């Protein structure tokens, strides 16, 4: 495959440019012009995906991952507090037990929203590569709109818009809002994936007498899936993190449960520390899984 599948191009640091999201999969959303010998630093706001090829990344992944686990375990096990009645408790363990109950909600929301985003993204991606100008235009406007508005603002707006028009449960509104936001980036990823299939292959298939749909289902689709899978994995991780934004309003997820706990106990610092560690551990596990998937895809051509 001609395009770099991931981390090789992305052992690099952060910018806040959200529209660069397609790039964080290593898929350039736009054909990259080679401007002289200007060094091209590919910036992303996503997590770094460690694969075997990247020794430096994988060792920093290990340090962070095991560091986070160790810290969490130590906090839960060894920090104790004795209250006025002389009862000894493990406050971090209490916090952990309470907040982790939000994990199923976080995952439920993220999984449904990623499915929604892939559906929207597939339509948008196909819509941007068809020859129909009107459909191109609609998809283009959607993508530009989403790129130009901060994620938190979009999510809050969509959440209230969707929620007030259709009067639905908070979690459903949140899932729809996340799907619409991430669908635009997904659309760019899928468009880049489709366009990464060499034109010659499409011509060869046509020259054999295959119809347009036969070419799509036998040549374009299976290869695009392989190209975009790691990128979709990345989006999943981003979404897991960003789902915490809507959760503040709608869901009883990890962050929301943390906030509830704080309102009862006033242990802000301790609770946010645990919440941060939980998110970090989840994210690191997932990024490693995406890395492994990528390695597998590479090996199987």
């Amino acid at each position: 495959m001609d395009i770099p599948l991931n981390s090789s191009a992305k052992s690099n640091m952060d910018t806040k440019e959200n529209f660069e999201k397609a790039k964080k999969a290593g898929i350039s959303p736009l054909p990259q012009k080679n401007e002289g010998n200007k060094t091209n630093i590919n910036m992303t706001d996503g997590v770094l995906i460690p694969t075997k090829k990247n020794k430096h990344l994988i060792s920093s992944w290990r340090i962070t991952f095991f560091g986070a686990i160790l810290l969490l375990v130590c906090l839960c096990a060894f920090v104790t507090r004795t209250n006025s009645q002389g009862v000894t408790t493990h406050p971090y363990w209490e916090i952990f037990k309470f907040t982790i109950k939000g994990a199923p909600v976080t995952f439920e929301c993220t999984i449904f929203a990623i499915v929604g985003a892939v559906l929207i993204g597939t339509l948008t991606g196909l819509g941007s590569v068809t020859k129909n100008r009107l459909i191109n235009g609609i998809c283009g406007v959607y993508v530009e709109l989403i790129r130009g508005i901060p994620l938190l603002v979009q999510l809050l707006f969509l959440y209230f818009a969707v929620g007030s028009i259709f009067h639905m449960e908070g979690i459903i509104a949140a899932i729809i809002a996340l799907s619409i936001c991430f669908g635009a980036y997904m659309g760019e990823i899928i468009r880049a994936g489709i366009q990464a299939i060499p034109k010659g292959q499409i011509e060869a298939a046509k020259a054999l007498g295959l119809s347009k749909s036969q070419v799509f289902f036998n040549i374009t689709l299976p290869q695009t899936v392989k190209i975009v899978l790691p990128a979709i994995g990345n989006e999943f991780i981003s979404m897991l993190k960003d789902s915490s934004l809507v959760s503040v309003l709608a869901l009883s997820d990890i962050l929301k449960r943390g906030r509830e706990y704080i309102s009862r106990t006033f242990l802000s610092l301790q609770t946010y520390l645990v919440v941060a560690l939980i998110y970090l551990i989840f994210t690191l596990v997932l990024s490693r899984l995406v890395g492994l998937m990528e390695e597998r895809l590479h090996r199987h051509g």
Partner: protein
Amino acid sequence: MAKIEIEHLYKDYIKNDGSILHAVKDASLTVKDGDVVVIIGPSGSGKSTLLRTVNGLEKAQAGHIYIDDVDVVNPKTDIRKIREEVGMVFQSFNLFPHISVLNNITLAPTKVLKMKKGEAEELAMSLLKRVGLEDKAKERPSNLSGGQQQRVAIARALAMKPKAMLFDEPTSALDPEMIKEVLDVMIELAEEGMTMLLVTHEMGFARAAAKKVIFMDAGEIIETGTPQDMFTHPQSPRTQDFLNHIL
């Protein structure tokens, strides 16, 4: 087998600056049933464009291309039917990298001709044997050398049992030591009586197999003759000039 007749064919492209490029101008040629015709000419002279109009990968603006009396240029013609009957081999092989060599060959017969899987695989194996690659059936195309990939591409086209074949510079992307293995397959095909229209600058092949050589320049057919005549005493100064450059 089949006959290809091209009559007064025109193909224009609109360039990025809006001006019109006449890629093929008033081209006429005939490939008789079982004949091999070679097109030569400088880069950008319209050879590929001419070839690609024959199976409708490019749409001609005017003129006719008859394949056994069916006009490809006529919008009513079912272009997929034509493509089933006319195979094409590309300079860059264009194998499908995500499926095995065997499946590259069986794809079109099973999907287009609705052939049974077992039957298609049998056919594919016999074609692989013919191009000397039966041991590569399970490999992915990327594990094959360029010459092997091109032989698979030929087998893939032959699996549709075409009545004519188009080749666009089939050996120019190959390392010199691999050119012969591909040309051998093509010569064998020509000897079996396949109707072939090719773009190639392999003069040895043209001498060995071609009935006619056509010289194109700037979208026009300048000169047509037997390989003998064309390579030893070309008439047009443009042909002479071109041959001096490449021979």
